[in-house]
């Protein structure tokens, strides 16, 4: 005995299987420009990505200013001292990526700002998840 197919699945499948010429004809018939629809999609995607990045930055800035432990850059707050000191400590413990450890060994200079960026990136990648 067949089960009922959802009309939603049928409608979605029909739209997904439409040829470009058929869809464009339908759009033009409805007074819509296919190129404009594409531009609207791109604009919506770009706007959403930007909104997300701005919201994340605002949240982090707020958390840092409040001094909470939940920041995604919490690694900076967890440890005393500058970001550069923390990075050096990580490298000494052998917990930093090889490139960072090598940079310190070779005497390459890393600015405090660069160190903060690196700490943020490592935090995103979960390097501090097991740190106490």
């Amino acid at each position, binding site marked *: 005995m067949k089960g009922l197919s*959802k009309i939603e699945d049928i409608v979605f499948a029909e739209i997904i299987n439409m040829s470009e010429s058929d869809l464009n004809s339908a759009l033009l018939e409805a007074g819509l420009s296919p190129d404009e629809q*594409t531009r609207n999609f791109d604009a919506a995607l770009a706007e959403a990505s930007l909104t997300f990045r701005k919201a994340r930055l605002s949240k982090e800035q707020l958390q840092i200013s409040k001094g909470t432990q939940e920041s995604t850059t919490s690694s900076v707050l967890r440890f005393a001292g500058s970001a550069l000191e923390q990075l050096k400590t990580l490298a000494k413990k052998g917990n930093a990526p090889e490139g960072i450890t090598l940079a310190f060994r070779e005497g390459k200079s890393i600015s405090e700002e660069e160190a903060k960026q690196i700490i943020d990136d490592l935090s995103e990648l979960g390097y501090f998840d097991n740190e106490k």
Partner: protein
Amino acid sequence: MDARTDAKPLTKDEFLDGMKSLSSHEKNKIMLLLKVSTDMYKLPMTSEELLQEIVCKVLEGNRHIPNNIPLILAIAKVGKSIAHGYSVSTAGKLTASQVIINDTEDETVQLIDSSQNVEDQVFEQQLLKRVVNMCKGDEDLCKLVLAKIEGFSATELRSKVFNGDDRLYERTRKRFQRKLTTEMLKD
């Protein structure tokens, strides 16, 4: 092996890369698919706004896009879910929905899978009414849609519903697609 159990969510980067690499045609399909949801749930929201919601929620980790179905379909499903969430956030909406579903004089009720939750049934019914109205007066189109709802495959549609008349089947199928798109593009 059930493909669903093997599905993993796309990472945020995979999702964004996937979205950026869609063709214009695929992007336009998504816009139309999202319009279906905003229309069915009667939301005062454009396809663009729903798309922004989808992208934000995926990037925030509140929604996930599985890697085992086409991205376009996944976006449509997530869009429907988000639109559904907005539509049932009003108090009393569920009661009104149940009244519609329980109206046994409504011919479309018989064509809806009652094992779905009520909100999904409402979406189905709204969409079905629109499709049924669109097909009225076109006997071949009605046959095609009803058979599709009953789960007939393309082969069965050709052989059993259209008695082996491939040309009639193809003409009807194309007509369904065109009428459906035109219907869904209406304001």
